[in-house]
């Protein structure tokens, strides 16, 4: 039988099942995030060779680029779960979309800060109105708009649906961020790491980058699961399964 996957997914969308599932996976995701993060930092800061042009200053790439990828990835996750939340009205999709927003905003903020720290020695300026930089800043504002709209409603589910709609409108910005370096030839360099075709980066620099990418992905999973669990408890406050958990906690 091959229909256990849709069945299992269907079951997973119920809050108590997801609560237990996320609770089991979260420590593992966090452990993997720390493991890959340490490996990537060691590889990037100690093992990787210095750049022939930028010297050691390029090493901020191991934070900057994975966070930039995550800023778009999290928005995409938020957009997809927003669509699911609006079309099928699945409560879990609302929770995932709304709890992704602060994490994505944090990744975007880190991207902007590390980028400007990197830009000062290399370009000679903290900030320039380049297409990539501007669209990334717009991405941050979109995240903040979604968070702001979510919290301005008294009814949380209604707020989640309204903010999900805003997230869907804003998803148009994600391809703009991604392709901005190809469409406008300004200060920010083009992409060197490519999914399709050969990357223009030495292997010694590439593997710590990929390890850090894995670390940020696992951190996102761990953080999202934690936030979603808390949110589910708050949303489902009066339900039996939450009371059961509260009683079990009290008995300990």
């Amino acid at each position, binding site marked *: 039988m091959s229909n256990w996957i849709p069945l299992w997914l269907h079951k997973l969308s119920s809050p108590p099942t997801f609560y237990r599932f996320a609770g089991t996976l979260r420590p593992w995701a966090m452990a993997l995030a720390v493991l890959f993060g340490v490996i990537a930092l060691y590889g990037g800061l100690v093992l990787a060779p210095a750049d022939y042009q930028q010297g050691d200053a390029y090493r901020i790439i191991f934070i900057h680029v994975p966070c930039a990828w995550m800023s778009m990835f999290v928005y995409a996750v938020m957009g997809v779960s927003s669509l699911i939340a*609006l079309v099928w009205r699945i409560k879990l999709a609302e929770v995932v979309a709304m709890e992704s927003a602060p994490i994505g905003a944090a990744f975007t903020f880190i991207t902007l800060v590390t980028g400007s720290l990197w830009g000062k020695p290399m370009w000679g300026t903290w900030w320039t109105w380049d297409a990539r930089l*501007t669209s990334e800043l*717009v991405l941050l*504002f*979109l995240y*903040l*708009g979604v968070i*702001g*709209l979510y919290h*301005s*409603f008294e*009814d949380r589910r*209604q707020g989640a*649906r*309204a903010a999900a*709609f*805003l997230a869907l*409108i*804003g998803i148009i*910005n994600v391809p703009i961020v991604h392709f901005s370096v190809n469409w406008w030839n300004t200060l920010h360099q083009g992409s060197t790491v490519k999914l399709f075709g050969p990357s223009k980066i030495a292997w010694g620099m590439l593997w710590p980058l990929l390890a850090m990418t894995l670390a940020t992905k696992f951190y996102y999973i761990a953080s999202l699961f934690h936030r979603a669990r808390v949110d589910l408890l708050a949303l489902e406050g009066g339900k039996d399964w939450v009371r059961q958990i509260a009683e079990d906690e009290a008995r300990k």
Partner: protein
Amino acid sequence: MTRPGLAAACAAMLRRDLTLAWRRRGDIAMPVLYALIVTMLFPFALGPEDTLLQRIAGGVILVTVLLAMLLALDGMFSSDVEDGSLEQLVLAPQPLALMMGMKILAHWMTTALPLIVIAPLLAAMLHLPAAVIPVLLLALLLATPLLSLLGAVLVALTAGTRRSGMLLALMLLPLCVPAVIFAAGAVAAAQQGLPWIAPVAWLGAALVLAVVLAPLACAAALRIALDA
């Protein structure tokens, strides 16, 4: 009971909103006064030097008009939410998207048109060359409906909330970056004697897209916001 036709319903909607706006003529004057005063502040802040004012004139006028529209946007649905006529509109047999389109048109006519009418005056205050003014007006004619349509979707989303002024700015301003870039680009190109048709064509394309999609999105957003 016979149902009024679509055209009659649209005309009634438009007439109602224009009448309501006309009964409160003072509100129509507010964005215009705001734009005049903001534009007046620039020569004071930057010094009355002709060349500097000429260089920034296009951008200043566009941003001022955008902010003035943002100020007025908040009130697009507020009176309808208060007296419950918005719920009636949602329940009406006519397509909500079309009715929203009419509301947006009425709002654009009462807030953006007066701003476009005084735009030559604003341009003259900042010494924009007279030859550039037609391009500025064309850019405004295409950019302001775009902002009204985009803004209406976001106003509809916040229709169910109480504090929405600053939130609206936070949501709308990132989304109108492209409109500002293209409109200001057209004015700047015309000022330097370069061909300015490309950015205007982009604005037109965006406007066509928005005219089709924004009323539908606005109706969907309104249903979400009022669904409590």
